[in-house]
């Protein structure tokens, strides 16, 4: 219990003093996760729209796989990415192992199924609504996808935030592919694991509180940004 209070006090102190190391780690957490989020959304959302709009042979199989992959164990993703990016692996020449890029790749793999599955649910519902109208208007496949993505953007935002939440709190995979290198690939979650390992629970908790605060702040910021857009028209 005392650790908890110590942690809280230490968290406040670190934030209040703009502890340079904390700022560096927190900024890296955000940078890695937001990059992964942008890439993952750019893959997952059009994919989800395509799955909602098109009837092709492997559609159901792909949807089932995506749903199953939502529970993908991050450690396994980390290991696979590690083996791929290792100098001894197929993409070794790129020299990406133990870099933030490797962490972004792992996070993208982890959250694409999550974002695609959640997005697909709302896109499918909207497509049922729109189906008759859009078919009657002879819109092209590409226009269908664009219309659906735009009109369900708030549900997509929720999907993206779910992806963000999973990515920013992830530790297993990025520990393996990033290596938790100080000043290079250390992020909040791996720093927490490190401090826990040292038995410094108070500092680990402090970092944990900062992580939670950061996640909440990003959620609020994104909601706030999207709200201003929404009040104008729809």
């Amino acid at each position: 219990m005392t650790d908890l209070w110590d942690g809280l006090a230490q968290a406040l102190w670190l934030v209040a003093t703009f502890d340079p190391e904390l700022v560096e780690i927190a900024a890296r957490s955000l940078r890695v996760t937001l990059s992964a989020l942008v890439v993952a959304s750019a893959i997952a959302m059009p994919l989800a729209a395509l799955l909602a709009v098109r009837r092709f042979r492997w559609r159901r199989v792909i949807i089932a796989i995506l749903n199953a992959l939502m529970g993908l164990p991050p450690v396994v993703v980390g290991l696979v990415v590690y083996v791929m990016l290792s100098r001894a692996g197929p993409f070794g020449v790129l020299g990406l192992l133990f870099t933030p890029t490797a962490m972004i790749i792992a996070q993208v793999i982890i959250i694409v199924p999550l974002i695609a599955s959640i997005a697909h649910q709302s896109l499918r519902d909207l497509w049922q609504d729109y189906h008759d109208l859009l078919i009657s208007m002879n819109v092209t496949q590409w226009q269908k996808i664009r219309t659906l993505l735009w009109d369900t953007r708030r549900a997509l935002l929720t999907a993206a935030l779910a992806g963000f939440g999973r990515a920013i709190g992830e530790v297993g995979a990025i520990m393996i592919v990033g290596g938790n290198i100080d000043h290079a690939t250390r992020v909040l979650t791996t720093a927490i694991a490190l401090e826990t390992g040292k038995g410094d629970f108070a500092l680990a908790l402090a970092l944990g509180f900062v992580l939670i605060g950061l996640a909440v702040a990003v959620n609020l910021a994104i909601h706030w940004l999207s709200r201003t857009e929404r009040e104008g028209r729809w």
Partner: protein
Amino acid sequence: MIRKFLIGIAALCFAQAALAADVMKMAVTTSFHNSGLAEVLLPEIMKDLDLEVQLLVVGTGQALKLGRAGDVDAILVHSKAAEEVFVAEGFGTHRREIMYNDFVFIGPSADPAAIAGADSAAASLQKIATAQAPFVSRGDDSGTHKKELSLWVAAGLEPAAFGDWYKAVGAGMGAALNTASGMNAYILSDRASWLNFGNKGDLALLYSGDPVLFNQYAYLPVNPALHSHVKTDLAQKLEDWLVSDRAKELIDSYQINGETLFVFNAKPE
């Protein structure tokens, strides 16, 4: 206004920090990193050589694996037999001894197995086994784990045949110490990890000093003949620094709670 502020913060996140002229990666063991010595040496290396050494903190087993795959430029570990195999198989160019520290036996302060007065490491292990007192083993194929196994064998005991009291946790030094603290169990730890450990609970240092507990650290550059991308020149620069008088002074004077941890013993070429 608030929007601009948020965009500013986002931009800040993506701004890259200025980097050192040279960057190399070195795999080190958890015990070395937990000692805190790295935090003393790395800034000095940065200052003297303008070289940023990125540390991958892993177990000895994984450190050797990273070297084999060419994912790091050099390794600093403490498992002589495995290191010699590494060099013999051609993955490392050579093995350079740098310094040593020692392992210690940690246990509940009440010391139910009464190892505090033992006359050797083997004797204390025999006492623990006889008392069947809870013992936490790293169980992760690390240098410390290998050391522990060899100590049991030297004491004429076979860990594979132990009962429930012997718990292999398959975790790093810190996590294993956390477990031992939670269970009030005996454990073998390197001195540095123990001194820096923040969750001691009822644990205490009970036995140390047997020369078999000394723990030799060696530096092994990865062989550029196998991995052409390895930064051999930087690895050489670092080695020269690690065996220099400057490093000797820093290593020998490093203390935690007034205790000296490492003894520099690199020999000039």
